[in-house]
């Protein structure tokens, strides 16, 4: 059997095994199963991600099942615990100050995309600086968070389609971080705000026009509703 055939068979095997069922495991951090650990091939395994999954509206199905013989064990996430120890709010603003970053703010709190919908922040083309016209929206969000100490916040960064994919993923993150920085400067604890960039993969308007582009260059606020204050 030549190499080509071997590779083909391997891929086919992998695909076949991907149909094995899996169960959902609602723990905070689910280490991804480790390689090379054997178990009964019928064992279901937690295929949930390493980090808290956002509880709703993410469009995520349970994760893909992988070859049970290799995936049913658990394994520590492979990070050097000594790496990266900056502590100040803005130099390490995402809560992931140690190498094993732990859960993001929000945990399993339900999402609320409506309350702060009107405060969506818009950006200029290829820019992440916040326009003065948007300051009041961010201030309103900061006030809301101060008055609702149990809620956490996700800032979603988005781009129009005129940048390339990975560039826009960075630009979208930069926009979300710019909004976050302003919130922190207004007194919101950094630990309550996390960011996510969708690049250009989630446009509000899929048209190829300047009108659509201006709507798509945005930072959206998603509340993670909680009953109790988070430190």
């Amino acid at each position: 059997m030549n190499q080509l055939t071997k590779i083909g068979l391997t891929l086919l095997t992998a695909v076949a095994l991907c149909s094995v069922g899996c169960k959902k495991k609602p723990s905070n951090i689910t280490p991804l199963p480790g390689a090379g650990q054997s178990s009964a091939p019928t064992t279901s395994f937690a295929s949930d991600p390493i980090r808290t999954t956002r509880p709703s509206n993410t469009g995520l199905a349970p994760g893909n099942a992988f070859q049970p013989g290799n995936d049913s064990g658990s394994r520590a996430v492979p990070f050097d615990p000594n790496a990266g120890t900056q502590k100040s709010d803005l130099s390490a603003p995402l809560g992931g100050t140690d190498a094993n970053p732990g859960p993001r703010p929000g945990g399993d709190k339900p999402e609320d995309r409506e309350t702060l919908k009107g405060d969506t922040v818009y950006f200029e083309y290829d820019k992440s600086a916040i326009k003065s016209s948007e300051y009041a929206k961010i201030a309103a969000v900061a006030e809301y968070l101060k008055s609702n100490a149990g809620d956490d916040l996700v800032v979603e960064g988005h781009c129009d389609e005129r940048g390339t994919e990975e560039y826009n993923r960075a630009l979208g993150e930069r926009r979300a971080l710019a909004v976050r920085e302003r919130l922190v400067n207004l007194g919101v604890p950094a630990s309550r705000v996390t960011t996510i960039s969708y690049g250009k993969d989630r446009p509000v308007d899929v048209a190829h026009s300047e009108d659509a582009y201006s709507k798509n260059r945005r930072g959206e606020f998603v509340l993670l509703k909680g009953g109790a204050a988070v430190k």
Partner: protein
Amino acid sequence: MSPVRCRSWFHRSIAAVLSALVVLQSAVGEENILIDAKTQGTIPIRLVGFPREVEDTLTFDLSVVGFEIVGPGKGQYEVRGGADPEVKGVLLEAGLNQPRFSRAYTGGSSRSQAHALADDIVKEITKLPGIARTRIAYRSVSGARGSHNQLLSEIYVADYDGANAVAITQDRSVAVAPTWVPGRLQLLYTSYLSGYPDIYSQDLTTSARLPVAHFNGLNTSAAVSPNGTHVAMILSRTGNPSLWVANLDGSNPRQLTRTSGYEASPCWSPDGRTICFTSTAEGKAALFTVPASGGAMTKLKTGGILNCTEPDWSPDGKWIAFTRAAGEFKIYIVPASGGTAEEYSAGEDPCWAPNSRTIIFTRGRDPSRRLSLLDVPTRRVKDVTRISGSCSQPSWTK
């Protein structure tokens, strides 16, 4: 230079030639033969006697590396052969009394045998390693947009011509930016599986999947060093999307850039010493290099071209292909040491083939993006025809 002479020679010796059976067992991994990608012209070649599928495969394989399939009496080269069912081929050159080679192939499908013959023809004539049996990984958008207009996508692996496509992820999430670990059946890619963009590593032989980077914020754009020991990537864990390098498993991450802008899409020089990436440190997106071990950033001169993203370093070290994102996306190529950047095609996200001659890239826009091959010296562009769906972010096996 008369092809007639070739044919007459062929008639005298066909029996002897076709009875010589050479079993081909070579794998990818030829020594990297350096050739100036810009100095080669089209090579006319004629294909005679092959059944349709084999001829189509040979035509595709040869066309994307600078050959031109020609009719009777025009070719400097002629390949005579067949498939009964094993593929056989005799490579003749006008003016020579002896065939350049005569080979037959066993094992695999007739398509894979045709690929092997094509690789042998390319190697014999151009001295370049063949690419017909290499693979690509890419992002494939699966169906319509989901909630919030989200484009769901999976990672696929296929033959370089798009045949034998296999889904590597089936998460119904957003999986993007696949890249190969050189010399291994292993991919790194970004997935929003957790709800956030994280980098995973997946062994394609066992399907085992491990996180490489799942820090808060952005984790994306993985690129593995040529020796397979390190990964360059974009992380925002310290407050800004920056270039980081870590061990392949994600351990010991080190931040290489601290700019007032943000970084994106790193790639490695073939000697592993330098990383080229996009940065907005000076305003508009431009290409920079930095020592992989850390040090000062240096701007790569691109002749005044701005909005440069998605650099990819040719395996021979000579060129950097990139996307210019100003209006319509366009593929440019610049000398790796900097200089005048030259436009080659509309498209984005170029990735060099192991032959340092062919580039795979993305054309069109969602929901109908497609992968195309650019033969740099001849500037010919040919779509990868066998892939359905909207595809982008191709990565060629290294």
